[in-house]
């Protein structure tokens, strides 16, 4: 009898333990199931900056850009990426969709990307423009909000990278709607003006732009990259307009050399350079007085930037500092001799105007127009890196034209997230 009771007690004890263990495991499994990653991966990254600026005699605190980058990864092959840009502009807040595209990885060497993507034209626009990556507070002349060259495309792109022995290369080849040549002649009392607009989301004609970039990294440490970019469109005018067959040929060369931890100079150097060239076929605009104005645009922009960071210094403070110098310039087509009153004017209208406007303003003199257009700029900066993706950036900048020099001081806090 005692043995039977003992046996029952043992069975009860074991079964209770198993039941408790089972319920504990079930609870843990539920918790783990909750955090199990799945095949969909959403991530918000991006960047922001804010600070204080002194420019041409005026000073102001600025609350800069909030630019979230949204990434949806579905499995190992599909990625959606989009960047929004929210910033104060004028009396309100400007909200822009910088790009939105879907990528499908075909194999180790090729990815297909469709939608709206940043133009692989040089390296600055595609890779270096975010506030925490761009080492200075401003973009080089002709590479930021007054771009010479395309900045975004609506199209399809094949891109990828591969090793070639010790060297590497990366490539991009795309077809897109290209740019739009806009002729503004709504007001019959004023002469018409022209601009090149990149927001060609419903193609204005049937001619597509073809373009791409080839990057070559000759050293096995990837320190040097030389890139060649080009874009050609056989017609950028509207299909119903009187202007027809106006072609655009743009090309760019970029160079990057980054070498970390060089013992001889106790630090790292970062050299970047780029040159953009935009050519648009000659075309004529009929002025209100009946004369024809011939416009032919050949514009260029360039920059070279060198940064040094004493990363091998024993002082933590010094190793977090970075010193930057940059020279940049923008050269625009000068008015032809018989086109008095026609002057190229740089636009500062976000990324939407690709290039330069030829505004026809008979009241303004040629000299004044030219000084606004062709410029060179020296920029010097010191950054203090608080972390790998946030820095306090102090810079001094002088912009020269044929008439005057305009200086600016910028103190920005840039953050990547």
């Amino acid at each position, binding site marked *: 009898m005692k043995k039977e009771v003992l046996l029952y007690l043992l069975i009860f004890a074991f079964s209770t333990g198993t039941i408790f263990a089972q319920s504990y495991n079930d609870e843990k499994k539920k918790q783990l199931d909750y955090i199990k990653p799945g095949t969909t991966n959403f991530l918000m990254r991006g960047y922001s900056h804010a600070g204080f600026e002194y420019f041409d005699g005026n000073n102001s605190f600025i609350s800069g850009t909030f630019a979230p980058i949204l990434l949806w*990864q579905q499995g190992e092959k599909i990625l959606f990426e989009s960047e929004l840009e929210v910033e104060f502009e004028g009396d309100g807040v400007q909200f822009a969709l910088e790009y939105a595209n879907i990528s499908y990885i075909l194999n180790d060497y090729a990815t297909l990307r469709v939608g709206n993507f940043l133009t692989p034209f040089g390296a600055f626009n595609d890779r270096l423009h975010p506030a925490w990556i761009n080492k200075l507070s401003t973009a080089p002349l002709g590479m930021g909000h007054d771009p010479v060259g395309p900045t975004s495309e609506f199209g399809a792109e094949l891109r990828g*990278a591969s090793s070639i022995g010790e060297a590497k290369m990366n490539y991009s080849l795309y077809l897109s709607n290209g740019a739009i040549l806009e002729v503004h002649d709504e007001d019959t009392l004023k002469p018409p003006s022209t601009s090149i607009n990149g927001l060609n989301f419903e193609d204005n004609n049937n001619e597509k732009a073809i373009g791409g970039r080839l990057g070559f990294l000759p050293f096995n440490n990837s320190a040097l990259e030389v890139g060649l970019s080009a874009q050609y469109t056989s017609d950028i005018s509207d299909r119903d307009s009187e202007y027809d067959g106006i072609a655009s040929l743009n090309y760019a060369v970029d160079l990057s050399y980054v070498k970390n931890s060089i013992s001889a100079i106790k630090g790292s150097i970062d050299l970047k350079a780029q040159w953009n060239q935009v050519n648009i076929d000659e075309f004529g605009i009929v002025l209100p007085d009946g004369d024809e104005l011939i416009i032919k645009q050949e514009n*260029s922009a360039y920059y070279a930037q060198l940064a040094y960071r004493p990363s091998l210094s024993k002082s933590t403070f010094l190793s977090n500092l970075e010193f930057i110098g940059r020279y940049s310039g923008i050269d625009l087509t000068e008015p032809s001799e018989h086109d008095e009153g026609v002057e190229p004017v740089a636009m500062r209208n976000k990324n939407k105007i690709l290039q330069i406007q030829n505004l026809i303003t008979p009241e303004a003199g040629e000299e004044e127009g030219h000084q606004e257009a062709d410029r060179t700029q020296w920029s010097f900066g010191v950054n203090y890196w608080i972390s790998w993706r946030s820095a306090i950036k102090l810079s001094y900048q002088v912009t020269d034209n044929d008439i005057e020099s305009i200086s600016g001081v910028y103190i920005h806090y840039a953050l990547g997230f």
Partner: protein
Amino acid sequence: MKYNNFAKIVLILIVTSLTLVAYGCSTSSKLASPENDDLGDFSSFTMEKSGAVLWGETCSRCHNAPDPTAFSDQQWEAIGQHMRIRAGLTADETKKIVTFLQQSN
């Protein structure tokens, strides 16, 4: 004016490129030359770089190399895929860098 500036920038780029190519060739030939060791013919031997080395070399082409602890394993997957497409990384580089970051966070 226009062509003077253009000529200047092209000259700077050419001189810089030649200097860098010369420097790069001199350092790589020292490393690759079989005469520099007594261990026989290494002509068929290839040394693969680790994820840690690639992380230091590749990320800094555009920005500071990221802190591995900044993101989770899953997040690094998405970032790796994004950077592969955006910055022109090879598939092999991306895989090694992501693995290194996931093992180091």
